[in-house]
């Protein structure tokens, strides 16, 4: 196969050459050094920074605990967030209460920020339900497994926000932004690109937040795009930007600006959080089949939590005590997750007949009756045949 020639002597303007782009917004280096950015700087209070540390540590524990529960057969599956804590906490903490979030299946950190109990996530991955939190209560949609579908829902929801007059009023309690989460792989789906078209066409208050974790199961990012993903947005006529997704400060800051832009009625933004999936795709995946451990080791050096801890300690905002406190909180959380996971009741099989529509149809009532009779036939040792 011939190599792509991206820059063309005749056809200008030619897109840039490489899929790797050093121009990503960063506020905290992997070494824990605070750097400044002309457009996206913010003053973070010590409480806020400690909060980020705590959030990230706890959601990492949620992830580790859930992975272990899966290994012990308590969950059918788990999609790990390991390595993506900063992207998710940064994006999640930049939200205002009235903002609405449409997640994929890996947004455990965002769920955390929206007040969804991690046990609810376990219950989904255990196979008890398909999402048992109330989206309207948390302003956090259900996990969506069909890749990309939720980006259109987010765009439509944002069109509803516009129709409610909840953009550009200047009222901070009222103006509302919507977030569509998706992955680097998802960027290839027709639905995601149609969401870009609709969002641009109606100037909808939606932020497309893509966690480019470099992998779509076994496929490297380069299979999906030969240029940095945030530039996709430019082709649809709205801004796109790449942020260090392992830097919670930068992610928070960029997302805050993008969200405010949406709330102000300035339309959609694409934010690409450049990060890395440190774990397997899910607990059924074996990444050693397709990627080098070197790569993973390199990304370990960019750990999102370690750099915040270094920064906090170095600047006297945290000490051993604080770190131990958070660790204890994580232990307690892990312990509660284990306990409550074991205690999760199986669903009533008859729910399948009652929850299909808002009212049960006669046909489903009949199927339920057959089902009940069939189940009853096993009662009292009365085994058929």
């Amino acid at each position, binding site marked *: 196969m011939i190599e792509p020639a991206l820059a063309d002597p005749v056809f200008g303007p030619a897109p840039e050459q490489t899929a790797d782009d050093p121009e990503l917004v960063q506020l905290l280096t992997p070494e824990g050094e605070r750097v400044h950015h002309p457009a996206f700087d913010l003053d973070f209070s010590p409480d806020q920074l400690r909060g980020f540390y705590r959030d990230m540590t706890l959601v990492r524990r949620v992830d580790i605990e859930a992975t272990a529960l899966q290994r012990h057969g308590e969950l059918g599956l788990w999609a790990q967030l390991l390595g993506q804590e900063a992207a998710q906490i940064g994006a999640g903490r930049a939200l205002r209460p009235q903002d609405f979030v449409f997640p994929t299946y890996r947004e455990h950190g965002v769920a955390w920020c929206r007040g969804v109990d991690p046990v609810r996530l376990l219950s989904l991955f255990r196979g008890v339900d398909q999402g048992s939190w109330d989206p309207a209560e948390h302003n956090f*949609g259900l996990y969506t497994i069909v890749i990309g*579908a939720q980006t*259109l*829902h987010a765009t439509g929801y944002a069109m*509803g926000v516009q129709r409610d007059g909840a953009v550009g009023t200047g009222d901070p309690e009222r103006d509302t932004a919507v977030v569509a989460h998706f992955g680097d792989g998802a960027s290839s789906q027709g*639905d995601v690109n149609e969401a870009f078209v*609709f969002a641009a066409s109606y100037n909808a208050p939606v932020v497309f937040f893509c966690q480019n974790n470099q992998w779509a199961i076994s496929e490297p990012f380069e299979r999906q795009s030969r240029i940095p993903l945030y530039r996709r947005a430019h082709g649809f006529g709205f801004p796109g930007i790449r942020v260090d997704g392992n830097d919670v400060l930068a992610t928070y800051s960029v997302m805050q600006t993008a969200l405010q832009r949406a709330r102000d009625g300035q339309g959609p933004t694409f934010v690409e959080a450049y990060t890395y999936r440190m774990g397997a795709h899910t607990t059924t995946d074996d990444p050693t089949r397709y990627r080098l451990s070197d790569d993973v080791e390199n990304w370990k050096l960019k750990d999102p939590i370690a750099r915040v801890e270094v920064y906090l300690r170095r600047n006297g905002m945290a000490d051993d005590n604080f770190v131990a406190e958070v660790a204890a909180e994580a232990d307690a959380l892990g312990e509660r997750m284990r306990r409550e996971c074991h205690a999760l009741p199986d669903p009533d099989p008859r729910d399948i007949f009652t929850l299909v*529509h808002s009212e049960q149809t006669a046909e489903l009532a009949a199927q339920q009756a057959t089902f009940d009779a069939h189940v009853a036939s096993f009662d009292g040792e009365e085994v058929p045949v």
Partner: protein
Amino acid sequence: MTTMTLAKALNNGLRRAMEDDEKVLVMGEDVGTLGGVFRITDGLQKDFGDDRVIDTPLAESGIVGTAVGLAMRGYRPVVEIQFDGFVYPAYDQIVCQVAKLHYRSGGRIKMPMVIRIPFGGGIGAVEHHSESPEAQFVHTPGLKVVACSNPADAYGMIQQAIRSDDPVIFLEPKRLYYSVKGEVDETAVPAPLWQSRVVRPGTDATLVAYGPTVSTCLDAATVAAEEGRSIEVIDLRTLSPLDLVPVLESVRRTGRLVVVHEAHMTLGMGAEIAARVTEECFHSLESPVLRVGGYDTPYPPARIEESYLPDLDRVLDAVDRTFGF
């Protein structure tokens, strides 16, 4: 009581629904300024504004997918798919999202969406403009599917579908939009949406149809009457949930049933009706349930579509055959 076309009845019904509930939105390709390629949404954008009557980009998955989001925000989107053959790009959103969100969310998310699809053939169109995709939606739990066959029903049913808290695939027999006129009493209380209806009583055999084939069956009954056979005709109206109560009652009397639709024979509605009626009326049947449908071929070019579509003769032929068993 006013006499109007099916198209006008739908237009009036939509207008009425938009007046009654400001959360009702109309969206689709060309539904605004143009009023839709069939003019079903004619004048609505002028009167309700482009926030409520939305011309969309040319992308069916985008239309249905954004309608999902609008419904989650409390709106009641009425989506127009321009032609039956163009519903497929939206199929994933319909089957995996629209149909399943109520169940998936344990009933917390309501999906009050209507997807209007002009369906069926007989208008001399090019490819993809004459499809009958209903079976695929009826096979999908979580969707409701209805088909109107006359102006009065059209007027009432579209409003009832919009009021439904569940997603409804609303099938409109495009061939009849302007070819059929009927009386519509806009003040009458419409029959319940989820019920089939006997449109012509009879005693010797039963014909079941919906949408465009209802009139074919009524014509067949008229011809059969001339030679002394009394045929009962039932308009299904609702395909999912399927209301077979009047059908079963009828077959228990007549012992003979023919189902007529334009959709392909294999796994068309006739298959399901045959299976259920046979199970329920096994000892009443004098003949197996027979089916008249589109053949199991792609929809043909316009010059031969009349050979493909069920017509009077094929229906009468099938009725004859039920007497041969």
